[in-house]
């Protein structure tokens, strides 16, 4: 067990350092969601005048969007880094060593989780400075951070699977629009009960991303909502589990030791 932990630590350290050394990789995920949050929360402020809109502050309503977008960036970063390792032959060299597949997967995701944690803290701090009041209090804020990190881990692991499957950075990048589509057809802009178009509301209802957003949102605008939290954490956990399974099975193919 200690050996695996040591291997995870070494690979995670490498992953974190690699992310930190590339400002072009970590600056956009930190700034872009904040810019969009600032612009969209003002552009959509009129929505708060709709009957039944759950809060007077669209910024408070929209805060979870930043965490979700940051998580999608985590997916692209983790995937692209692993794809580069495949492309440069690093993964093949690792296959010659006694490193375990599980250690490799957990370690490779280190950079994305590290960045996801920093992102979550930054987004939350900026939201609080901008005047967002979290109804669930300090405990709620901590839970938002935890969920944001879990979601970033889930999407990061999905990025690893895509990288292992396609073996190319371009392959990972080309999947990004599809993942972004999940965010677009969710309840990110309006509560589901206020979505007027049936097919869109149905898509948002079967989209797990809606529940991750709604769990974070509930803590900000309505307090402790057990159902929303169970669904949000449940889907985040399912995303991590499923992505890990897929990535592990694909890793066996990619790292076949002869």
């Amino acid at each position, binding site marked *: 067990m200690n050996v695996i932990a040591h291997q995870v630590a070494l690979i995670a350290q490498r992953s974190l350092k690699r992310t930190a050394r590339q400002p*072009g990789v970590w600056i*956009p995920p930190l700034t872009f969601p904040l*810019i*969009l949050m600032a*612009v*969209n929360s*003002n*552009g*959509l*402020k*009129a*929505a708060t*005048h*709709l009957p039944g809109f759950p809060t007077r502050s669209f910024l408070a309503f929209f805060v979870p969007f930043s965490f979700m977008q940051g998580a999608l960036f985590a997916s692209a970063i983790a995937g692209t880094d692993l794809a580069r390792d495949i492309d440069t032959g690093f993964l093949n060299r690792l296959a010659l060593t006694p490193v375990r597949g599980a250690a490799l997967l957990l370690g490779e995701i280190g950079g994305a989780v590290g960045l996801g944690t920093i992102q979550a803290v930054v987004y939350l701090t900026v939201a609080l400075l901008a005047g967002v009041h979290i109804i669930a209090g300090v405990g709620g804020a901590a839970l938002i951070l935890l969920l944001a990190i879990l979601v970033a881990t889930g999407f990061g692991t999905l990025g690893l699977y895509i990288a292992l499957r396609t073996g190319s950075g*371009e392959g990972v990048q*080309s999947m990004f*629009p599809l993942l*972004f*589509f999940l965010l*677009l*057809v969710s309840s990110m*802009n*309006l509560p589901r009960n*206020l*979505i*007027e*178009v049936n*097919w*869109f509301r149905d*898509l*948002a209802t079967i989209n797990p991303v809606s529940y991750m957003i709604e769990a974070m949102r509930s803590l900000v605008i309505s307090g402790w909502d057990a159902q929303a939290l169970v669904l949000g954490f449940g889907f985040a956990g399912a995303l991590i589990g499923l992505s890990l399974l897929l990535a592990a099975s694909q890793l066996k193919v990619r790292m076949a030791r002869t």
Partner: protein
Amino acid sequence: MISVALGLAYRQLTVLFKNPSLFLPPMLFPLMNFMSFAGGLSRLRHVPGFDFHSGYTAFTFVFVLLQSAAFGGVFAGFGIARDFEYGFARRLLVSAPRRSGLILGYALAALARWLMIATLLTIVALIGGMQVGGNGVDLFGMYALALIFNVVGLLWACGIAMRFRTVQAGPLMQTPVFLLLFMSPVFVPLSLLTGWIHSVARVNPLTFLLEAGRGFIDGRPTQVAMSFGVGAALLAFFAVWARTGLARAERAG
């Protein structure tokens, strides 16, 4: 100059069709945005003061059309940067008798690509039940504005690509365009925006194009002279920007 432009445009389109990874994202993004806005935000038409007769689908269609036009130009800029990075553009500079034809060629290719995207977007919007209040002349005006914006986007990205000559300049091409787009009345009319976004949107040149485009599709043309004036000014400014970029690339060798 024309032969250089046509030759380069043909080559760009051939490269594009042979690489779905270059062709599909610019095509999918506007469609996804359109679905998201028209489907997810249509309730906004019930906000007090929202005055647009043709419905929210038409309201949001104009924004997505302009967005696709701008990003059609910007994505073409990626291709220019790639040509410089791989050395192909240097061979073009050596072989072209009139180098301005290179900008024209890239612009023609960008235009052809955007026309395909615009056609698909329009078909999807009509299938989705978009109501059109304007007549043929109005619609011609709307598409003309979008076409101008496509060329402006290309000239902007071309200027950046020729100055930096690397694909790494991609964010520099995209981000300002993205900000310009979203600091306009995207989701609701200008009159319903409040705070700093209203102040910014009021002086944003895109707002004039957007409001005129929405007026055209609604059959109530507004700000027509102003929008085409702004479009012409943007074209002139960014033509100089792209040409001076080409001069820089020529000097760099």
